[in-house]
């Protein structure tokens, strides 16, 4: 049974405090206890979201995070979950052109908005200048943080097309890389910015 709930009722604080399941309790109608977790009774919301340029309509569970929607329901597994609590940036995507942690945003919050993921960087089979530069500078080692680094860099170049190395470090500091290839990522973004990122 689909119920449309106002997204305002789910505060960011409450969301960050709990896991998805705790959230289900917090947002369910009064009287729905923790034991009644069958999917049918979970509040749903129908949303419209533009993903990589294509408009999608989907009924989401209110407890789904945006990264859950992207990975599990749209099959866009390029976006990674490193911590699921807003600490590492592996899940960074662009929401209306701005980099956000998709693990720390609910899917319902994307209603009426536009999401770009790493899969949307390649246009007509042509790599984005950032992707090309990441390859040439050996940005990815294990590659798990790479999608997030790319989307963070993309967001940075949208608002600052010619950043300095320090501005890149500041802009991307929310994206951890345990392989610690920070030098190469910064060089790659600098080079892409010089060459002109589309």
């Amino acid at each position, binding site marked *: 049974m689909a119920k449309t709930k106002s997204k305002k009722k789910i505060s960011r604080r409450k969301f960050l405090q709990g896991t998805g399941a705790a959230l289900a309790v917090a947002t369910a109608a009064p009287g729905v206890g923790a034991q009644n977790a069958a999917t049918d009774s979970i509040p749903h919301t129908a949303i419209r979201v533009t993903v990589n340029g294509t408009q999608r309509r989907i009924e989401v569970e209110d407890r789904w995070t945006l990264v859950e929607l992207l990975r599990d329901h749209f099959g866009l597994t390029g976006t990674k979950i490193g911590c699921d609590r807003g600490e590492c940036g592996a899940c960074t995507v662009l929401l209306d052109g701005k980099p956000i942690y998709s693990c720390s945003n609910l899917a319902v919050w994307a209603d009426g908005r536009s999401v770009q993921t790493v899969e949307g960087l390649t246009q007509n089979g042509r790599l984005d200048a950032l992707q090309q530069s990441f390859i040439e500078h050996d940005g990815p080692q294990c590659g798990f943080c790479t999608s997030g680094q790319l989307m963070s860099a993309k967001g940075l170049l949208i608002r600052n097309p010619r950043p300095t190395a320090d501005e890149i470090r500041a802009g991307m500091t929310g994206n951890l890389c345990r392989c610690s290839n*920070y030098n190469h990522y910064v060089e790659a973004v600098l080079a892409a910015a010089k060459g002109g990122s589309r």
Partner: protein
Amino acid sequence: MRQQQNTSIAPLKTVGHATPRIDAIERVTGKATYTNDIRLPGMLYARILRSPHPHARIRRIDVSKALALPGVKTILTHENCQVVWGAGGISGGLQYNDDIKKITKHRRYVFNNPVRFVGDPVAAVAAVNRHVADEALRLIQVDYEVLSFILEPEEALKPDAVKIWPEGNLSLNAQNQAQPMTTRRGNIEEGFRTSDLVFEDRYTTAFVHNAQMEPRSCVANWDGDKLTLYTPTQGISNCRSDTARDLGIPPEKVQIICQYMGGGFGNKNQNQDADLITAMLAKEAGAPVKLEFTRKDDFIGVHGRWPTVQYYKVGVSRDGVLKGIQLRGYSGMGGYRKNTGTIGGIDIYQCPHIDSVVYPVYTNKTVSGNFRGPEYPQGFYGIESMMDDVAYKLKMDPVEFILKNMTRKSRDEVPYTNYSLEECIRRGAETFEWKKRWRPQPGSDPGPVKRGAGVAFMAFRSALGRSNAVIRLDAKGHYTVFVGVTDVGAGAKTTMAMIAAEALGVPVSKIEVVWGDTDRCPYSVGESGSRTTIQTGYAVVQAAEALKRQIAEKGLPTGDNVLIGSASPNPTLEGKVRAAFGAHFVEVQVDTELGHVRVLKYLAVHDSGRIMNPLTARSQIKGGATMGIGMALHENLLYDRRNGQPLTAGFYGARLMTHRDAPEIEVIFIESDDGYGPYGAKSIGESSKVPAVAAVANAVFNAIGRRMKDLPITRDKILGALA
């Protein structure tokens, strides 16, 4: 980008040229398939319930409410699942041996009772989705008898300490004997008697976590009696044999698949409890299961680097020649002994009298295990801080002291296959402008912001060993290389393709690599011990030679025919020791009012033999050095002494290096070809972290004139030392 290459070795056509990864496009487009990206029809999701207590006996587990939750399919606990996790902790840290497994008194199960650390798995749930699985965990009722706990290894050895195992807290060795690990050479008393000066000190290192970006996950699927595991493992071959042994099924009934993995740095070696739990859940549920660790699960449920306490006593002549080195060390292993717990470093000094005794001790913390150079970064920090201090006390320049006392033969007797340590240090000191940056009087800079320089050096094993490779050539001229590597991030696939291209005399674009699947690939040691390139790379060269002989004999294949070359070499060193060498030079700036340390300049000089791919090799050096800075300055898994709870089990709390913290790392390779390995390749991956911690710590001393003896060197400690 500064980078220098030594051209004293004969250049090759492909090897030695900077080459982008052959799978780079997959890595930048999101197409690379990591374990958690796998989705099978009808797949269930699993979560693990972990002990909230550092030490407790489980009196009763009631799973009835959880099982009654709609969508819950299977729950495992110690009552219905008694699988032994061989690689997780069998006496002596020698986990891969069937004989030891039979006799050991200290055996780790996937679910244990008693539980021995906060995070010890208690139950696992498989349900229709992860939300239901999460909810089910909350409905499992566990009645614990809470036991007293102990966190620090020295305290755990006191007679009145609570016993984590019935035999006591000194971990048993493979013969069930409670004995420390000892290394002796000469006569230490003689060494101190012949010394002009003897110095003693104590150093400690913190518990730090591998914290690779990809949290552990696993997908298990049974097809009849055959198990397929998709899992991030650094070694598919060992993961298969471990899993088969632990589940009591033949190895050929286990298929391990690892296409891409998000780092590991040693904590994805071999099989993990997650693999066994997922396999058992899938078997019990009769459906494929995906187990996902949360980040907290990963921090508290997967191992980190063992914390240590190191007591040194060093005897030296007045002119700065080492006479004796004594180490008494304690390593905190957690509730199980997953790896050895040794403390490395003494061996890099030339010294006639050596006495090292290291106690691997059980504690009620998360288990310790392999992490990038398992016993070295912490050991090198201890011994190289100690020696740096001795140099200052003798009024010697630390570089001069190193040149006088560093290893020239392994253990002072066995020659190295090549030796370049002196060149690493001299060339590094010159390039770094050591004399300009180093302060003869430590802490002498005027004003509150002081600069200083530090140095540390290393020798790291580059042993040979067995591996396999198969190369197939078809009539269209395509070469397919089958190797049992995964790609933890170091770039093994690309390296193997380059080595094959070199050996076959064809461009890299002609080579396809098949990797990461035990049903398709022959044995490889996997990405551990910095030996994939050396061992599997050498097998690729040999397989290429075998294929060339086939071609010479039979001609190129036509039509549907193929030619296959294979090799299973197991080369040996003929009485020599093979090592990579290196030296790191660091300049720091310390704000003595804030206690803040900033790395201003960092130079890493490495002899890793011939560099196969300078592009990825540089990434490895820079990454290891940067990790080392983090370990030196801020990484720490803290525990609350009152209740045994981990306090910093997450990325923020663990305080990893970020974009803003990472300085530019300058890399110099001094290349060599000692005639072993593929074209003279030696180890790289781990060695880059080994001297980093000590170099940073020594630079801090030079800046502030206070020796920082406890890692990490946080602001509060610096301010405390200066107060």
